[in-house]
């Protein structure tokens, strides 16, 4: 197959090229019009932009155990609709991904579903209970690409230190959800003007920052890498920036809702705004964008957290945390960051593809000859309105319904096969 006359987002800039795909890989990248292939199928891409297939290293696919919210199939459909060719799924399933059998189950479902590449993330401790280390070696052998306690912090610091050290032996990173539960103390929103206005219980930045600081101290002290999940505070960005300057092996992610929204949106008690960590203030939002610009924050993830309407259509405190994010991430990121002037297209591709590939040592993340033909083909000029009823995901829970964005995914190719087209 030939992608003809596309604007191709290469590592060093956007170029007008033809891309020839053979045997699931990129066989040739040539100046537009030069790509040979008379007998081959041609995909005309004149007004389209080709990104390396997006990689989301933080999603929840809910299977096994919570198929009412999402399945691996609907999650993968959602992923390819959003331009994602690889996703890494968190272990808070039922049973928890804490052994090779559950990892193998997910890998088997990946093959059956056959849409995008799915990489399981194992739990740090058995059952996410914070007591005994999970079978990290066995999970790695079965295909796990990282470990994470996901949604929880490993409270026992010694155990966390051991997890980082032991995981490093297997070339795995700990992906750290940073939250001091005693300080959160039941908080459901960011503590500030709007928590007082709504009377919803707030959670201070320090609840996140304290644990970020702890994980950074451990990584520095032990000389092992660490990855910080979904950074939401300006102060957390600063902690990571300072640690990177000292040479600590830290990488970090954030999500579109943290650089797009501020806590004002909670004022009507819409439970679709409930997410952990909470959406914070303008100074945090600006600091997150600055962190993405200067490289403090390496990548953008969705923390895709699909829920059934029943889990959200209740009182705010009782609603589940989370946003269904796979189908809005690219457009929100492009609109907010590229059109907003913070990032170039190449930098966006770095944040949404190359960086997660590097962090987790996955194949892909770049458009180059020999790489798997994992590609997201996008119409950057198309303006559209986010409508959760059109989501392929079972989770319609988004605070972005009705928002106008730019950038519509037209085709998603995985190993050279069209897995989604619009």
């Amino acid at each position, binding site marked *: 197959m030939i992608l003809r006359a596309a604007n191709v987002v290469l590592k060093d800039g956007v170029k007008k090229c033809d891309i020839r795909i053979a045997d699931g890989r990129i066989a040739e990248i040539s100046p537009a019009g030069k790509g040979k292939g008379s007998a081959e199928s041609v995909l005309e891409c004149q007004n389209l932009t080709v990104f390396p297939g997006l990689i989301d290293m933080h999603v929840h696919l809910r299977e096994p155990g919570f198929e009412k919210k999402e399945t691996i199939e609907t999650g993968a459909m959602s992923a390819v609709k959003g331009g994602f060719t690889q996703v890494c799924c968190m272990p808070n399933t039922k049973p928890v991904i804490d052994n090779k059998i559950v990892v193998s189950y997910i890998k088997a479902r990946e093959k059956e579903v056959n849409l995008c590449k799915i990489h399981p993330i194992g739990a740090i401790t058995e059952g996410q209970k914070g007591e005994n280390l999970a079978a990290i070696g066995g999970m790695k052998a079965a295909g796990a690409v990282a470990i994470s306690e996901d949604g929880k912090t490993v409270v026992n610091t010694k155990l966390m230190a051991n997890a980082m050290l032991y995981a490093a032996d297997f070339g795995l990173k700990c992906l750290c959800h940073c939250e001091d539960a005693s300080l959160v103390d039941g908080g459901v929103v960011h*503590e500030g*003007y709007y928590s007082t206005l*709504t*009377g*919803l*219980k707030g959670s201070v930045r320090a609840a996140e920052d304290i644990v970020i600081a702890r994980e950074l101290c451990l990584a520095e002290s032990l000389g092992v890498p660490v990855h910080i999940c979904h950074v939401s505070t300006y102060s957390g960005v600063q902690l990571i920036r300072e640690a990177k300057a000292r040479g600590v092996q830290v990488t970090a992610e954030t999500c579109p809702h943290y650089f797009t929204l501020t806590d004002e949106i909670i004022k009507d008690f819409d439970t679709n705004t409930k997410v952990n960590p909470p959406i914070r203030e303008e100074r945090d939002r600006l600091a997150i964008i600055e962190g993405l610009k200067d490289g403090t924050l390496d990548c953008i993830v969705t923390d895709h957290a699909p829920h059934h309407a*029943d889990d959200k259509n209740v*009182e705010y*405190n*009782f609603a589940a945390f989370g946003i269904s994010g796979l189908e809005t991430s690219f457009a929100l990121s492009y609109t907010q960051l590229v059109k907003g002037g913070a990032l170039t297209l190449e930098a966006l591709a770095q944040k949404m593809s190359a960086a997660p590939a590097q962090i987790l040592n996955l194949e892909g993340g770049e458009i180059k000859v020999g790489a798997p033909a994992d590609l997201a083909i996008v119409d950057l000029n198309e303006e559209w309105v986010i409508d959760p009823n059109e989501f392929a995901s079972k989770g319609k829970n988004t605070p972005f319904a009705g928002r106008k964005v730019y950038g519509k995914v037209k085709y998603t190719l995985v190993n050279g096969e069209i897995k989604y087209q619009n």
Partner: protein
Amino acid sequence: MRQKDILGLYGLEAGEIEEILSLGLTMKGLLKEGKKTLPDLAGKSVTTLFYENSTRTRCSFELAAKYLGAHVVNLSVATSSVQKGETLIDTGKTLDAMRCDVIVIRHPVGGAPKLLADTVRAHVINAGDGMNEHPSQALLDMLTMKEHLGTIKGRKVAILGDIRHSRVAKSNLYGLKKLGAEVTMYAPKTLMPVGLDQMGAKICSSREEAVEGADVVMGLRIQLERQKAGNFPSLGEYAKYYGVNEEVMKYAKPGALVMHPGPVNRGVELTSSLIDGDSSKIEDQVLSGVAVRMAMLKLLTEGDCQ
């Protein structure tokens, strides 16, 4: 009244608040004359739906509805079963199907009355939601002030106590500011939330500063569970450093009203001598409560088709 529901004073205009207070004063006059058989809600049904324990607020709403001739049903739902049982939306739909005209709801979560109001055809009155609002309490406080001070505009109201967890403080702040009063607040830092200054309160750094020149001094209840959660060392220490006593009252205007939403911890928020003193309006607030709730019920339902 144009509103379908009364969810808080944040969403009411000054004119609507004045209308409720004005009718409330009339109702209070009638109650003082012993007139408790009024026809305004005859043939209507009122359900109180309480997800939190309450004695006086529920009793006050029930009597207010009965004095106006309504049928009243009381539904209690233990807080612990809220998450396990029927959802709030389903409960609301059920009450709607029974042709309930007004639902009075108390709930531990802020915003729950709005969720209900968005679902049901019936009028919804918020009788207290989490740390959000308690409009009928603020209205009865304002009714009491209006009755004894003549006007609210230009008056200074000092609120001291557990501001952080208080829906009463916020509803009073919204209402009093809309009617042109000045509001000062004082609490231990552990019991003071952020942002109230942006809503128009003057946050003070001492009891004396808060009470200085006040026309009204209002204490808010200190729950023992707040001490257990480590917000202050003991009720005794709270009373000593944060409570309102005669010494503190010297800073207020002579004859300043002493108020409290109740129930009072004697000797904690206020000294017993203040509670029982001539300036105390705490008992009178209770009568204002029935009167203002009668006004709320009448104004909400009077435009309904029969």
